[in-house]
C-alpha cells in the first residue's frame, strides 16, 4: 500500500531497455554464442515468472471474473451493478485524483522552481532539506495523522483558534473529500518535486541566464523557460502519482469512508461485507480503465521522448 513500490516498478521498464540497448550493442556478437545467451534468459526468468505469476495472472483473472456470474457463466450483470450503485463514486474518484494531480503539479513546480531560481541560500537549503520528508511516510500513517490534524476539534483548528485566526464556532472538520485531497497532495508533492527539481537542476543554465540578462523576472523565467523544458519529466511524475493515488485505499477509508467515496473503498466493501468478487472486479476494471488511459499517455510520452534523444 505504500507509494514507492508501484512507482518504482512502473518507472523502471521505461528506463532500462533504452540504456541496455545502448551499452550492449558492441558486445552482442560475443553474447550470442552458446551458454552466455542461456545465462541471460535464466537470469531474467525468475523476474519474468514473478511478474507472470503475481501480476499478469491475477490481473487476467480479475478482468475475466468481472464478467462472470457466481455460477461461472458469462454476464454483464456485475458491470451493470457497479455502474448502478457506484457511478457517483467513480466520478468522485476521478475528480479527487485529477484535482490532487493538478495541485501536486502546481506545488512541485513551485518547489522545484524555488530550488533552481531561489536567491536566498538559507531558504533554498531549508526547503531542500524539508520537502522530501513526506516521501518516507506511508499513506496509512499520513491518513492517521490527518485524522487528528484536520478534525473539527483537531490540531489545525486549535492552532487557528489559539492564534486568533478563526472563532471557535467557525471551526469545521476537513475530514471529507478535502481531507483526502490534502493527504494526497501532501504525500505525492515531494515525489514529483524530486523528479522535477532534478530535471530543472540539470538544465543548461545558459538559457536561464540569457533570459535574466534580457530582463525577465523569475516567475516569467519559470513559466516560459524552465517549465517547458522539464515538461516531459513533470508529466511522467504526475502520471505515476495519478496511478498511485488511484490505488490507495487507506486514505479514503480512514478519512472519508462514507458516500461519495473512492472506488477502492467500495471494492473492499463488496468483498468484505458481501463476498461479492464479481462487482469488486468490475470496479477494478473501471480502475484499470482509468489507469490504462493515463498509462497510454505515459507510453506515448515515453516513446516520443525516446525518439527525440
Amino acid at each position, binding site marked *: 500500500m505504500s507509494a514507492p513500490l508501484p512507482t518504482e516498478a512502473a518507472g523502471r521498464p521505461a528506463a532500462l531497455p533504452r540504456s541496455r540497448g545502448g551499452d550492449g550493442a558492441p558486445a552482442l556478437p560475443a553474447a550470442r554464442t552458446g551458454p552466455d545467451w542461456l545465462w541471460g534468459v535464466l537470469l531474467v526468468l525468475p523476474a519474468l515468472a514473478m511478474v507472470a505469476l503475481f501480476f499478469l495472472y491475477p490481473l487476467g483473472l480479475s478482468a475475466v471474473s468481472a464478467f462472470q456470474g457466481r455460477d461461472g457463466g458469462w454476464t454483464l450483470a456485475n458491470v451493470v451493478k457497479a455502474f*448502478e*450503485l*457506484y*457511478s*457517483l*463514486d467513480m466520478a468522485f474518484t476521478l475528480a479527487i485524483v485529477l484535482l490532487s494531480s493538478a495541485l501536486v503539479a502546481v506545488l512541485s513546480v513551485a518547489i522545484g522552481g524555488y530550488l533552481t531560481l531561489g536567491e536566498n541560500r538559507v531558504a533554498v537549503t531549508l526547503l531542500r532539506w524539508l520537502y522530501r520528508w513526506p516521501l518516507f511516510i506511508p499513506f496509512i500513517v499520513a491518513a492517521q495523522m490527518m*485524522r487528528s490534524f484536520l*478534525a*473539527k*476539534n483537531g490540531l489545525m483548528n486549535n492552532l487557528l483558534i489559539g492564534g486568533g485566526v478563526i472563532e471557535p464556532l467557525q471551526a469545521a*472538520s476537513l*475530514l471529507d473529500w478535502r481531507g483526502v485531497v490534502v493527504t494526497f497532495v501532501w504525500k505525492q508533492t515531494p515525489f514529483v518535486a524530486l523528479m522535477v527539481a532534478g530535471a530543472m537542476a540539470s538544465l543548461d543554465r545558459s538559457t536561464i541566464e540569457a533570459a535574466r540578462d534580457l530582463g525577465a523576472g523569475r516567475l516569467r523565467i519559470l513559466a516560459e523557460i524552465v517549465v517547458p523544458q522539464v515538461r516531459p519529466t513533470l508529466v511522467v511524475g504526475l502520471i505515476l502519482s495519478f496511478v498511485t493515488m488511484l490505488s490507495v485505499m487507506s486514505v479514503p477509508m*480512514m*478519512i*472519508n*469512508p*462514507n*458516500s*461519495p*467515496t473512492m472506488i477502492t*473503498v*467500495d471494492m*473492499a*466493501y463488496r*468483498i*468484505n*461485507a*458481501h*463476498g461479492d468478487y464479481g462487482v469488486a472486479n468490475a470496479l477494478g476494471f473501471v480502475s484499470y480503465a482509468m489507469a490504462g488511459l493515463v498509462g497510454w499517455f505515459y507510453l506515448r510520452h515515453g516513446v516520443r521522448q525516446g525518439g527525440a534523444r
Partner: protein
Amino acid sequence: MTLVKLRTLLAGAAGLALAAGLSAAPLKAETVLTVLTAGDQNMVDYVNEYLAPKFEAQNPGVKVRAAGTGPGDGGSQKIYEKLSAEAAAGAAKWDVDVAVIHQKMAGQMVQEKMLSAYVGDVKTGTLASRDSARNALGTDVTGYVLPMFHSQIALAYNPELVKAPPKTYAELAEWVKANPKSFGYNGIKGGMSGVGFVTGWAAANIGDATRLEKGPYDAAMKPAIEKALSGLKEFNKSVTLTPGNAGTLDMLNRGEIAMGPVWVDMFYSWQADGRLNPAMKLQLIGPGMPGQPMYYAVPAKAANQEAARKFIELATSPEVQADGIVKRFNWYPGIDATYVQPKLDAQTWAKLFTDVKPDELASKGKPFPLSGYFTDIMEAYERTVAN
C-alpha cells in the same frame, strides 16, 4: 563493498533464522489450539487476555493461539474464505479449531457443511435456549453454534446537550431536522453500528417489519425496502457521517456530535476504561434496534476437535459467562440469563441494565433482518441513499 555484501548476507540469514524461530516456537507445546475471531479488537483481547490463560492453566500442554480477522461481517468472511480454500485444496485437517463468527456467516457455513455439530457433545450445550442459538437470520443452525455473547445497538447521547432524547425513529428524524449535524453515524461501510441503525430504519418505515425478521424471503420486497429507505437521503443531509464504530464514540466524546448509534458493550467498556465521558447515556429507540450474538463454531475438519470442544465448554460455562462476558467485557450473556445471574453480585448485574432496562431490551431489541433482506437493504441504501 565486500563488507556491505557480508552485512546484507548476515542480515538475510538473521531474518531467516528469526522467521524460522517464530514459526517453530509454538510447536513446542504439545497441542496448539487456533482460535480465529471476527469482530472488534475487544474480542481478540477477550480471548487473549482472559480466556486463553484460564484454558491453558486447566489444560497443561495446550497452547491457545488467537487471531482477529477484523470487524463486521468482513471479519467472518475472511474466516470463511480461509476455510473454504482449505476445503477446496482437499486438506485433511483444517488449521482453525475454534471460529468466532457472525450470524450471517454462521448460516452460510452450516448450509455449506463447513461446521461440525458439536453442541450435543458439550456439557453447556443445553444452557442457551434463546431463539438466536438455533436460528441465524433465517437459517437453522441448531447443534452447530453456541452464542459467545449478545450485543445490542442503541443510541448514545450527551445528556448535557440533549435533555429529552428521541424515543422512536420518527422522533429522531424530527430531532435531526431541528438540530442539524448533531447526530452522527458511520454509514454502512464503517462497521455494524451504522449498519444496524440502517436496518432499524428500514424496519421502522416498512409496512411489514416482522417479514424482514421471520421471512420467508421474497425478492419482490425490494421496491418496498427502497421506499422505506427513501427518507434517509434527506435525513443524511442533516447528519454527520463518522469514520467507524469507534469514530462515533470519539466524536461524541470530543463534543463534535451530540448523539449516535453505538454498540452497548463498547459504550460501557470505553466508559470503564476512561475513554468516554461517564456522563454519556444510552437510549434504545422504538420500534426497535438490532442486536446480535457472536457464535462459537468448530470447523468440520478442525485438527483439534476435542480441545476445541473443551475450550467452548469453558467459554460458555456460567462462571466464565458471568465473570468474563458480563463483568469484565460488559456484554449481555450468550447463555440464558437464569444461569448467569446467580454467579454475579446484584450491583454488577444491575450495571448491565443502567440505561436500557430488561423489559425495553426484550421489546425493542430486535434481530438483524434475514440475510436475503439484509443484502437487499444494504444495496437499496447504496442505490437510493448513497448514490
